[in-house]
């Protein structure tokens, strides 16, 4: 059973009682019986209908509200039961034989029945759509919250605190030893931060810019890791202007360092390469680190493979099913991230 909301139920009851009173006034004005009698019948019938609908929807539907046909069925049953039940109760209270009103004023009572039906339907429709609207709004807010959480996670993965603090520690050391190199390092850090923080906003940038940002990141890491990190960036001139989603390759290069090279005492070589295969752009991140098989448990454990999931999602958003990412182990010492996407449908 869905949660019972006393405030909402009280509001429904009040609206029903008000409507019943208005109806009683209208019937009295049209010249049938006295106001007190009309009010009694009206409230008995109207409140019974309301109670049946409100209790019925909570008992029958898992969400408390349902689709139009189901709600219409509930309304019909509630109105019929409420009308005859309420009338009978009124007759009983006033000492009349059962269904006395129906026999004495058939026309008026039929009109009253139809009125009840219309009121029940309109009221139910109004409250149902309001409730559904509210739950839709709630779902929308939930989706927004999830989206911003994902963005935050993305940002956290790119601005990994460990990476930042280690870079700063290196920078501090470098200032004392080699101020010129320290300045170069600050420039790389500056561009890397700018790209990471602004990257979420721009939809695409040229492949040349993507490679330049990777170079900033790799230069930063090279200062930290010393001779343990060697890298090659290979971008043919013809492909420099191809638009790609910003920082698409970043997680793959990070993975290559963290799960490929870092566990290796002697380090290794990272190659980032772009090439054209017919109408497809192929981007490769390859490393000579510990190999895919050895890295697999760590890759899975690292925040549920968030980096790879994120790259796949971004590829799917930008290029649909034609954007693919594969991991390949060419031999014991080779881990690769390959992505292919159609050149023509680049946004």
């Amino acid at each position, binding site marked *: 059973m869905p949660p019972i909301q006393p405030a909402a139920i009280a509001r429904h009851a009040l609206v029903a009682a008000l409507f019943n009173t208005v109806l009683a006034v209208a019937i009295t004005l049209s010249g049938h019986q006295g106001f007190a009698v009309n009010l009694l019948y009206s409230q008995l019938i109207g409140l019974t209908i309301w109670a049946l609908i409100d209790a019925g929807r909570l008992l029958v539907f898992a969400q408390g509200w349902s689709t139009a046909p189901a709600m219409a069925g509930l309304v019909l049953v509630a109105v019929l039961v409420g009308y005859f039940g309420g009338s009978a109760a009124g007759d009983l209270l006033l000492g009349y034989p059962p269904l006395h009103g129906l026999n004495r004023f058939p026309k008026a009572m039929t009109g009253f029945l139809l009125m009840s039906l219309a009121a029940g339907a309109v009221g139910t429709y109004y409250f149902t759509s309001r409730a559904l609207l509210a739950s839709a709004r709630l779902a929308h807010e939930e989706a927004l919250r999830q989206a911003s959480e994902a963005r935050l996670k993305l940002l956290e993965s790119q601005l990994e*605190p*460990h990476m*930042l*603090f*280690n870079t*700063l*520690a*290196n920078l*501090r*050391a*470098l200032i*004392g*030893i080699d101020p010129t190199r320290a300045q170069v390092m600050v420039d790389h850090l500056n561009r890397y931060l700018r790209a990471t923080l602004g990257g979420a906003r721009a939809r695409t940038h040229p492949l040349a810019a993507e490679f330049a940002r990777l170079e900033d990141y790799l230069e930063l890491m090279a*200062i*930290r*890791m*010393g001779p*343990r990190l060697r890298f090659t960036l290979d971008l043919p001139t013809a492909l420099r202007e191809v638009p790609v989603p910003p920082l698409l390759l970043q997680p793959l290069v990070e993975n290559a360092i963290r799960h490929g090279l*870092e*566990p*290796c*005492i002697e*380090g290794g070589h990272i190659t980032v390469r772009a090439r054209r295969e017919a109408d497809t752009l192929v981007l490769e991140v390859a490393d000579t680190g510990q190999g895919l*098989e*050895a890295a697999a*448990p760590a890759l899975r454990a690292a925040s549920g493979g968030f980096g790879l999931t994120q790259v796949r999602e971004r590829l799917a958003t930008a290029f649909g099913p034609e954007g693919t990412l594969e991991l390949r182990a060419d031999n014991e010492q080779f881990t690769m991230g390959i992505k292919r996407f159609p050149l023509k449908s680049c946004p």
Partner: protein
Amino acid sequence: MPLITPSGPTALIAEDEPLLAAALQAELARAWPELRVLATVGDGTSAVHQALALQPDVLFFDIRMPGQTGLDAAAELAERWDTTAAGARPFPALVFVTAYDDYAVQAFEAQAVDYLLKPVQAVRLQKTVEKLRKASVKRSSNAIDSEAAMEPMLARLRGLLAPPASAPAPRLTVIPASLPGTSGASGASIRMVPVDEVLFFEAADKYLRVLTAHAEYLIRTPLKELATQLDPQVFWQIHRSTLVRASLIDTVTRDEAGKLSLTLRGHPVRLPVSRLYAHLFRAM
């Protein structure tokens, strides 16, 4: 045997980032001029080898290093440190160095372990150095039973090595394993080994050996990871590389060199017990 040799206190730095290693050494030269840095190594495996070979008074171990973490290196060193040989030196003072790691820092605080945050600040380093100086004076004055002297440090290391209690992984009941000789993950058949039949687990190179009464299997899961999925009351860790079914432990003996080992009911093996876990076997 005096702790501080006439030439003054010595240290070993283990740090994989060359600039940071140089910076720490430079800061140490200012904060502790008498200290001689015997060597700087860039990975967790060399850290253990060099520490055993050079026997320094102080170790500065980075946490994140290739080979093995600074923490694992410290544990291995604690297990392998020789306290009985002639001229044996007391176990070095340990200082961990970390850039940013909430969990590690919390654990260091909880276990009262000395640590430095990178970039190393002169003021903070000065405090650490004063503490180390005081401790080394105290240790050199009463370093008679070095095995017993190690116990507080062993307890702290055990505290750091224990998996975080927050989210226990689901308990394993069956382990998919391969038979030795078949080529691991890539081929051959997988045998489902019920955990109830396992006598002990032993780390061997890249694999973990799973031993039952009649057979031996191999898995790739690291011991550390597997341990979180087993009941610690049922399987006891007796060594960095060994988990053993506690109910099957038969005898525990100490040899002339002071080294503990145990035998099992139902298996002819004799397993070494490291001093990290020797506290499990003090007579009740």
